[in-house]
């Protein structure tokens, strides 16, 4: 989780303030958008497998729904905090706005570690979370989705609880469900592919070919795995990937100079993306410290694990060869590091643009669920590419026209649309 003094919400607010200054927003509008509009804290009592009772702490924030129902993930993480949830709900508002989908921003989570919970215990947490928040979420108010350490099975348990409580079939309540149970084809790929669509477009702007580039990536979860898959299909070479080792409670980087083999790494990883180090060594991977992914001699870096990973302390270690950083995770770069990255003229694709693929496909899933008519994978992923490419190019053009960084441009464009919606509704 990184430095404990780091506060993701403060960072998100700081980035918002910068954009608000540039937009010369009035105080009332700032006040409305600096904080979530709704915030829920609740307890989820669970009977553990050994018969003990345990209470887990859960959250849900709805940052803004001026542009449509709130949308955002649910994270299960032992170091989850309300500030992280607040920050992520704000980021979701900007993300849905920059992706130009008619949704607002929300986020939620539970302080827990699924590594140490049985499936039954996880199911109880999922059902308990829904029971606590039932009245304030739903297909037309706030639509949850999977995030860190939550998966389609968790979503299905939550949906089931919601439908039991509502007495209706409402698959649009939640997204990221299994295919065939209201899930959308292409959902698994969407977030990772979305990151690479952005990189593909950035490479075009830099006149580079994917097959002449290499990459290092932090994290080996869903986003990373699909990002690696598509990047390799495009001809690129991934030489380093890092992941969390639950047993050692620290992260490691796995390096192969002539390129990792995604299939073999997937075969030796667990459901959370943790790679077995001894098996990796047998397969010829160098097992390095978890921070080594950042210092590799590559053209592209993707932080796709957690927030607060590229900081003032380590940003200088980034190789001069790096040309693109695409933020697959939420808030992986601190504002201080951001400035240094900009001074190094590295093309940075900000988080809520780079990782918008997931929420775009979530939106598609919700549309399909509400129609009860499901599209082919070609249709889902074709639309995803079109939306992502459009979003990237809109931000890029704005950035060029106004001589601003991609992050500031994306922030301004996103915030402006939300402000317009709030004003249009007469809220401010």
């Amino acid at each position, binding site marked *: 989780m990184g430095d404990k003094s780091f506060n993701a919400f403060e960072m998100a607010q700081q980035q918002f303030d910068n954009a608000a200054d540039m937009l010369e927003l009035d105080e009332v509008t700032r006040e409305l958008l600096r904080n979530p509009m709704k915030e829920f804290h609740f307890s989820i009592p669970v009977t553990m497998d050994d018969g003990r009772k345990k209470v887990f702490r859960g959250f849900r924030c709805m940052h803004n729904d001026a542009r449509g129902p709130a949308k955002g993930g649910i994270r299960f993480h032992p170091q989850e905090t309300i500030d992280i949830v607040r920050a992520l709900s704000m980021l979701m508002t900007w993300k849905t706005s920059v992706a130009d989908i008619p949704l607002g921003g929300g986020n939620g989570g539970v302080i827990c570690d699924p590594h140490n919970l049985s499936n039954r215990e996880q199911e109880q947490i999922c059902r308990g979370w829904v029971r606590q928040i039932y009245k304030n979420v739903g297909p037309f108010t706030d639509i949850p989705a999977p995030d860190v350490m939550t998966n389609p099975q968790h979503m299905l348990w939550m949906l089931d609880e919601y439908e039991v409580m509502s007495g209706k079939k409402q698959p649009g309540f939640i997204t990221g469900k299994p295919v065939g149970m209201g899930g959308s084809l292409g959902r698994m790929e969407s977030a990772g592919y979305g990151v690479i669509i952005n990189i593909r477009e950035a490479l075009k702007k830099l006149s580079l070919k994917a097959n002449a580039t290499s990459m290092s990536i932090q994290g080996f979860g869903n986003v990373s795995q699909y990002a690696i898959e598509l990047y390799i299909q495009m*001809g690129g070479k991934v030489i380093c990937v890092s992941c969390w080792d639950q047993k050692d409670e620290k992260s490691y980087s796995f390096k192969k100079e002539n390129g990792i083999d995604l299939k073999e790494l997937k075969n030796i990883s667990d459901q959370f993306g943790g790679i077995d180090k001894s098996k990796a060594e047998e397969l010829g991977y160098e097992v390095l410290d978890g921070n080594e992914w950042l210092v590799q001699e590559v053209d592209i870096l993707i932080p796709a694990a957690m927030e607060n990973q590229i900081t003032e302390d380590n940003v200088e270690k980034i190789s001069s060869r790096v040309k693109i950083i695409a933020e697959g995770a939420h808030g992986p770069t601190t504002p201080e590091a951001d400035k240094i990255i900009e001074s190094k003229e590295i093309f940075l694709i900000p988080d809520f643009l780079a990782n918008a693929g997931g929420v775009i496909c979530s939106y598609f899933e919700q549309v399909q669920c509400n129609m009860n008519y499901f599209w082919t994978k070609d*249709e889902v992923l074709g639309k995803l590419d079109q939306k992502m490419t459009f979003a990237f190019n809109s931000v890029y053009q704005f950035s060029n026209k106004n001589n601003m960084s991609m992050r500031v441009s994306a922030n301004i464009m996103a915030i402006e649309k939300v402000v317009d919606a709030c004003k249009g509704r007469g809220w401010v």
Partner: protein
Amino acid sequence: MINEFNRTFFDDEQKISFIGEGELGGKASSLKFFDDILKESDFTEFDEIQIDIPTFTVLRTDVFDDFMTQNDLYDIAYSDSSDDEIALAFQNASLPFSVLGDLRELISKVNVPLAIRSSSMLEDAKYKPFAGIYGTKMIPNNQFDSDTRFTKMVEGIKYVYASTFLKDAKEYFTASGLDIRTEKMAVIIQEIIGNRYGDKFYPNLSGVGKSYNYYPINDTLPEDGVINLGFGLGKTIVDGGFSWIYCPKCPNKKPPFGSVTDMLKLTQTEFWSVNMGEPSAYDPIKETEYMLKENIHSAEEDNTLQNLASTYDHATERLTMGTGRDGARVLNFAPLLSLELIPVNDLLKSLMKVCEEKMNSPVEIEFAMTFSQDSSLEKPYRFGLLQVRPMVVNDTDVSLERSELSSEDTVIASEHVLGNGTSSNIQDIVFVKHETFDPANTKLIAKEIAEINTKLLSEKKPYILIGYGRWGSSDHWLGIPVTWSQISGASIIVEASLENMNIEFSQGSHFFHNLTSFKIQYFYLPLSNDFPIDWDWIRSLEHITDLEFVSHVKYDKTLKTIVDGKSRSGVIKK
């Protein structure tokens, strides 16, 4: 040089682009080559005609590779599964992600009819043309909703991919001795030349030109070439339907019809168009899902026959050029060829000459044209070059005296033979029995032939095929409507005539091209042939298979065949 698709189609200066990596395939490479040639060539004398290759984008062969591997399709593709099973498996698969965004952008900006065409690695190679073996899908692409247009285009692409592994293609590979595992498919997405008339979209004129003619008529020479003209989409011609056949050197000489009424019967009466109206039944694995075949009378209201047809006056039994009067229309293209209202013939001659020079071999071209009635336009006519492929011309020196045609050991002889060369490796003869032959049963006959063909092909035994009427005609009243795969093992094909099946000598373009490229010798025996088939001898041979309409007999020695390409005579001897 060809540009990467930049998510425009018509707006780009470059009318040809590609998506993905790998090869462009034979057809696309050839079209690109001739696009450059057209730009360099001087066609200023045809200043009223816009001459070009219709805009297209190619999905290169790596996209096909990714599609096959990502969806694990090779097992079913190489299996003996039925065509429907293979085509459906392909429809259920997903295209590689890398092309989806480009395709969606393309379709969101384009709403004119599109042809989705094959462009395989091996297609259009000089000696193995694969002409008509792979699928083409025409889509109206006029739905309001871009999602629907996208879905239809994707279905079309998957259909073309699947056609690589359908029965026709597999048997073609077997017959040609090629390994299907070496084949890769690129796909061309191309605008269709034409105009919309109500619910139909079609070109005013389509055609096929060959710069070398194996069937010269009216005292012309093979080198004078031959042109088939049709109305509507070119499918009429390439499938072997009725079209107007003439030599570009003497465009006014009509084909040898016995009478005007013959001409009425034996010229084009139906035409193909793209269906722009009510969607037809959903059938993504049918090539003609969005195509209409109608009588030419339905084009009267479109006012599109005036430059092409003549009118038959029943009272005088004469033809009048044009469509100014009421009466049956005859598509003899007289206003174009005799009055030269539009210099189509001169353009075709010039173009074939250029293509021949550039390919250094005789060529076959496919084209389509539209005629605008807006005379204020600088270029009211558009000529789209759709395909250029080299033709195989066999020049082995063979000499055959006429006396040899009627010797005692002659089984079959004719002075209307296609091909050139000698052979002495055939023992098997497959023939249509004249005692049970009826033009109404030709589709059943085709099935029986296919059954025997499959057996002989698997045994690798070449054979002589004897039947009545025009082989491979899409009109089953004109002959036996076999597809190429149904007769792909035949080495010699004999087109005999009966009183009730006496059709002029001609084949569909794709069928013809395959005949010539596989160096199959083709004997045409008109009713008036001086050399009758020795049926008594054939029937005395050992009967291997005896079906209702078709028999297979075997000679215990080998038959000797001599075909003299120069004199166009040939003989098959015991």
